[in-house]
């Protein structure tokens, strides 16, 4: 797995799609391709309370990426040092194999350039010491770039917090 992952606290997400628009602008994309998307589930009534989830979905930067296997031109690559999966735009021939192969529709079609485009965790920004464009943009701090090794901790902490809240209320 990559060293980093985009972690979303979906409780805080308000489905504003700043992350989506900012990602597109940062990548110079126009109308059409969306390297990240918000999947809306709900609202539905659960035990008398309304529930809705807004789930952020970009590329998972898989361990054994189907997109890499599918690409006939070797355009999709894994960055050695941190496992970021990215498309070398010069090598992309526009065959759409990765788009078909990825189960998450992470690679997207950029009709203007005739090439595939996908989340590269904003590796240029990370290298410059910045957060990914979507993370900085998010108005609720729902998105975070976390180290993969920190992830179990983060989840546990959240779980414990919830548990505590349940007992006092």
């Amino acid at each position, binding site marked *: 797995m990559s060293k980093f992952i985009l972690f979303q606290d979906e409780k805080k997400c308000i489905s504003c799609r700043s992350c989506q628009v900012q990602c597109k602008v940062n990548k110079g994309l126009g*109308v059409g391709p969306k390297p990240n998307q918000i999947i809306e589930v709900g609202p539905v009534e659960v035990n008398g309370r309304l529930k809705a989830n807004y789930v952020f979905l970009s590329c998972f930067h898989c361990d054994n990426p189907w997109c890499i296997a599918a690409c006939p031109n070797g355009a999709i690559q894994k960055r050695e040092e941190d496992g970021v999966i990215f498309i070398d735009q010069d090598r992309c021939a526009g065959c759409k194999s990765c788009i078909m192969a990825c189960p998450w529709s992470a690679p997207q079609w950029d009709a203007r350039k005739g090439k595939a485009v996908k989340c590269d965790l904003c590796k240029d920004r990370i290298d410059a010491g910045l957060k990914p464009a979507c993370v900085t943009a998010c108005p609720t701090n729902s998105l975070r770039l976390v180290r993969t090794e920190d992830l179990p901790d983060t989840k546990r902490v959240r779980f414990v917090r919830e548990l505590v809240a349940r007992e006092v209320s």
Partner: protein
Amino acid sequence: MQQEYSICFMCSVRCPIKVMVKNDDVQLIEGNPHAAGIEGSICPKGAAGVSLLHDEQRLKKPLIRTGPRGAGQWREASWEEALDYVAEKIKQIKDTYGGRSIAFTERAQLNSHISKTFMQAIGSPNYFTHDSCCKGSLNTAFRSLTGYADSSFGVDLERSKHVILYGRNYFESIELKAVKQLTRAMENGTKLTYIDPRVTVTATKADKYLMIRPGTDLALNYALMHVIIEEELYDKEFVDRWVSGFDELKKFVEPYTPAWAEQETGIPAAEIINLAREASAAKPSVIFHYGYRSSHYTNEIYVRRSLIILNALMGSIEAPGGIFIKKSAKDISKQPLHKLTEQDLPKVNEERCDGVGTAKFPTADPAHGVVQLLPQAILTEDPYPIKGLIVWRHDPMLSIPDYQTNKEALNKLDLLVVIDIHFSETAWMADVILPESIYLERGDSIQEVSGLKPSLFMRKPVVSPRYDTKPGWEIMKLLADRLGISKYFPYNSLEELWAYQLAGTGITPEDFAAKGFVTLCQEPVFWDRRDGLKFKTPSGKIELVSSLLEQNGLPSFPAYEPVKPPAEGTFRLLIGRNVAHTHVSTQNNPLLNELVSENLLWINNQAAAKLGIKDGQLVEVTSQRGKEAIRAFVTDLIHPEAVFMLHGFGRRVPTQTRCYNKGASDTMLQVNITDRVGGSPALQHVHVTVRPVA
């Protein structure tokens, strides 16, 4: 890559931004990282500013109409010619009918002091902003209780323990700072109650959502007051010290029991009692949010007053976590920015054409007028003819209810000039269009932001104009030159305008370089709640029995009258906003249009089933004023008495190809009716029928 600080103008909030610029082009726009509560974040509209800059469908050159009004026949003109043309026409109207026959309307903005100066210099009282169509009644409500306008109040979300929102859809009508504060507060345990006839994103985030019958907020509030007073849940110390008219209120709300309100609102009495108790337990750190757009019904001022009164009862005014009075530079003994309106301008003694400020319309705020009365004034020539209209980035055609009447009124004018950045519906009717540079290409007057920590912000040009456009302050100056009033516009450049504003403050434009703003004090300023509150009412207190209202023969507590419920087979048309669009100005933006490209008619599933309407089906919505086609969104997330649509669609200007003819226009359906006390139009007054289109 350069980094420049400026101020966003994709909506009216004006968040501070950081703009990444390369080769005179904008790469990315982020929130200003130095601004507390912004920290780099941006909303989708702010992010999409880049696609506005590059939009091929913007206004590019001055245009002069060649065919009939609204036919879309234009020729390009030089700035010289277009400005000469406008000035000549203004002179003619002024000579024939007097200066008062020129009216002006704009979206209130950083250069409004320039617009006001212009109007006073040509001798007209008829300066309008879009404000009455938004928060006019809220303004009057605040003035009637505290002596301050609504713009002088803020909410301290971050420290609040319980925030109660009445349709104030924070998570879809984003103000970045407020959204950040509210999410942070909720993480720390702040409770959120949300009341709305429709389930919004905010409703899905709330601890408690109450579906209220549309138009009955006042009934809920009277019942809340009833419980709060009966159970003595109010802040006695605060009420004794700062509130006058409490006994009258006590007597007045006696009959309005929770059981009565349950009938009216559909909210169970037990929930109402519970809300009153929970709010009181959090006092004074509780906010009954007084709302923002407050132009729903004809009783709007009393709804807004009831919300402010609830805060007064909780003692939340000027309490941490409550609502506070914004402090200006003057309040902290600093020299405020100079405005052009401070000059010795000619006095204008004419009465306003909308009657605001006269016995006809005594309580609304003459500072911005009641713009929805302008079409009537033009059509009837009562009290006198209005022959010329200058419109600066406002779209009365789509902001004022009743599209057809607006069109007739604009058609009657001798001169219609529009200053805008794109082809608004009003620009389409204009004689002359003067294209303004967009906010990334121009600077504007420096902004003074009052608040707990007053500060100054600067919008400056970060790239050069893409087309043959000019900043609005320059357009006004060039017009003034031609009208012989240039002495009231003592600037020739942005730098000179800034220097005029900053004179005597000890602050220079260079002081903005490091962060894009200058904070005038370091610590938040709260006034002392025992002795230091400065209400601007005659009594110096919060006047529940209002001298402003009573002196004008208007009641402070009118008996509750239900807003007329829709008859069987009809629905109340609710309107609102979402996160992708601002008013009527962003629907054609490529990236924002991609997010939300048309509006849908929300209709309750049971009502839809009766009418044979299926989700996604095309339906026809008909009111007494018009008929529109729109696709249905069938859902149980809306009250059965109502249907809902987003404002700003159903556009008729073909050159705006992305939004042309998409969705339905709410102004085509609405009737133009006003809350005569507060000044807002009743935008949700209209009832409609809906039928499937086969």
